[in-house]
């Protein structure tokens, strides 16, 4: 036998569960100690001729440049292979979650240089989209990793709506696309059609290693190597998958709502 829940039970639950929306971006939430964020490279520790990190990287994300090893975050899966392979501890992941960049070139982490984080959209675009950004999400071969962490921003913990950002159910209602996945051949046409259906002016955000350069599938002929192979991309958010905080940091940075420290501007 069932009966309707008395409202008092729901209210008591509501009281027990409490108010749980994060205070971000006023306060940056604590991330786990083992969280792998922006890689830090201490090239001065690198032994002469050593290429252990580059050889260990499964996605060829690390190249040896004049200043030492440099990591292409567009390729990086944030796995521990490079840091475990390094005999001198010269490469490790920091807890810095701020990874989004405006161009593919900016995704390169070079020793001794500041990482070039995403800048805000242009003034005219910001006038049109800055206070209300509606995104159509297209998964184009994503593994449901990026998808779930994009989706989680809509829950009460993150409450994406308070920033004026919303995922919408039609490209006609959207200001842009948020794309996950390496763009499988079988999704190319659907992605193109969805992009064409978004009214101008429109923006594109690539979330995750797959959508940037193909991720773990970058060698496969069944995919095209990321969103920019099909549509122009305005914002890249690295990770496999990126932490929700990294995604939100990217979106807010793009809207010009964050200061350099990753808190409210």
């Amino acid at each position: 036998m069932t009966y309707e829940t008395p409202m008092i039970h729901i209210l008591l639950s509501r009281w027990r569960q409490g108010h749980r929306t994060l205070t971000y971006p006023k306060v940056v939430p604590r991330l786990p100690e083992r969280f792998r964020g922006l890689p830090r490279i201490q090239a001065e520790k690198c032994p002469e001729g050593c290429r252990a990190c580059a050889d260990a990287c499964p996605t060829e994300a690390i190249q040896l440049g004049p200043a030492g090893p440099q990591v292409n975050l567009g390729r990086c899966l944030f796995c521990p292979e490079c840091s475990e392979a390094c005999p001198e501890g010269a490469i490790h992941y920091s807890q810095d979650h701020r990874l989004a960049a405006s161009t593919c070139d900016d995704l390169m982490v070079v020793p001794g240089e500041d990482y070039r984080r995403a800048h805000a959209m242009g003034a005219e675009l910001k006038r049109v989209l800055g206070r209300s950004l509606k995104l159509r999400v297209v998964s184009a071969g994503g593994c449901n990793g990026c998808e779930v962490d994009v989706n989680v921003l809509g829950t009460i913990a993150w409450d994406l709506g308070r920033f004026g950002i919303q995922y919408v159910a039609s490209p006609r209602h959207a200001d842009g696309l948020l794309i996950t996945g390496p763009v499988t051949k079988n999704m190319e046409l659907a992605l193109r059609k969805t992009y064409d259906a978004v009214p101008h002016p429109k923006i594109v955000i690539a979330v995750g290693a797959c959508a940037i350069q193909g991720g773990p599938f970058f060698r496969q002929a069944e995919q095209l190597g990321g969103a920019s192979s099909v549509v122009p991309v305005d914002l890249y958010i690295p990770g496999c998958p990126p932490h929700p905080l990294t995604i939100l940091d990217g979106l807010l940075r793009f809207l010009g709502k964050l200061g350099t420290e990753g808190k409210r501007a």
Partner: protein
Amino acid sequence: MSNHALRAILNGQAVPLREVPELTLASFREAILEGTRGGARLACLCATPDLRLFAVLADDAEKRLRVAWARLPGTRYQALTPECPQAHLFEREIAEQFGIIPEGHPWFKPVRYHLPWSDLPSPWGRDEGSLPAVTDFFKVSGEEVHEVAVGPVHAGVIEPGHFRFQCHGETVFHLEIALGFQHRGIERAMLGGPHALSLKQAETTSGDSTIAHGWAYCRLLEALAGVEVPARTDRVRGVALELERMANHVGDLGALSGDVGFLPTASFCGRIRGDWLNLSAEVCGSRLGRDWLKPGGLHHDLNPAMATGLLPRLVKSWADTRDAVELLWSAASVVIRFEMAGRLEPTQAREIGLVGVPARACGVNLDVRKDHPFGPYRAHPIPASLAESGNVHSRAWVRWLELIESQRFLSEALEALAGSDPDPRAGPLPPLAADTLCVSMTEGWRGEVLHLALTDGHGRFARYKIVDPSFHNWFGLALALRGEQISDFPLCNKSFNLSYCGHDL
């Protein structure tokens, strides 16, 4: 079941290929038909590029897997599907991957819309320019009958797939599901492996089941390398898998509440799911368990201090979970909506070879952790959680029962891990055995995950086959929709919550 023609093996046991019986095509066929008639399940049927067929029958009652193979005399053979419906998608897959034609297949269509790996032509005459999901959909005609097409891009944050409904008013006569949009070529990528990226590709086969697939891959390699994993390491892997189940089941129960408009549980669970994911992140740095496991051991151990620190968080997350989910069962409006939607019969479930939560929701008593126990589940068993009605309510209820069991397992495991020293770090695996077959299964939160590998003379993968539970279960969703209102599709879909990429590979 008395099937002596096949070789019995255990889950995760490597066996030299010469010990796997080669049957004539006729006796291969008879062995599968006799086995499935006797209650075994066709866990895997696949082909190799040199035109051999391999079958894995799961004999759950005897806790054994039975394997055999047969050489195809040409590119055609008599389809098993008319007599063994469980084979339907496997036989279509074989045709698509290798151009082998199962004659007399009653529903002969592509699975993922790609061209054959070999030089043989596509059985459907497809070429480079052919588009996905362009096929002859089953059509109902008549007065007031209409067709609804949905996807591939859906109205939410969700993977792509195409759904064709044949409707009469609101009532769905038939639903046909065309997938393949997510096809990334994982099985082909594995050939010649293990490669540096193979673990990553296993983990992202279905990224919400990172541990279920990653663990199946690791056990496969360990068996082929002849490496035994220490019991403590196995316990940590069990924690990883059960945390994955907690997060996803909590998320599903919240999403189901949302789909019937019961917002308290929907809101609470959306957040609590994150609390469970954050427990995984505490151990391995990734909410989805990426790089937690590695072949031979763990990338990230769960040391006693960490286990001690996780215990109070487990208690808190479980208290929140109970509080949120118990609201559901006392709300008549929720229970009635759940009970009235998406019913599957146990006979249907058995015939089509359903696995995981939807199978157990029909009272079909199967769970890899119980039937083919692996890792910590031998010493610390988890019973199968069952319901009877086969509807949305049963699928939700099974998830709830499984949450209770997983929480118990986690609590005991963390207590034990808090009092024992970590195993030494595992080194690289020795080379894999040559000319060997291994089948490795885990019970992910969706159900049975199967990885099969055949190695060549150098111990490299000559064939790697992955069967995600979704591969068995998508057809179950199509059947569950028959006679339902089309407006209940989201609810029914959510109650299965199947993987697109796990199916598409």
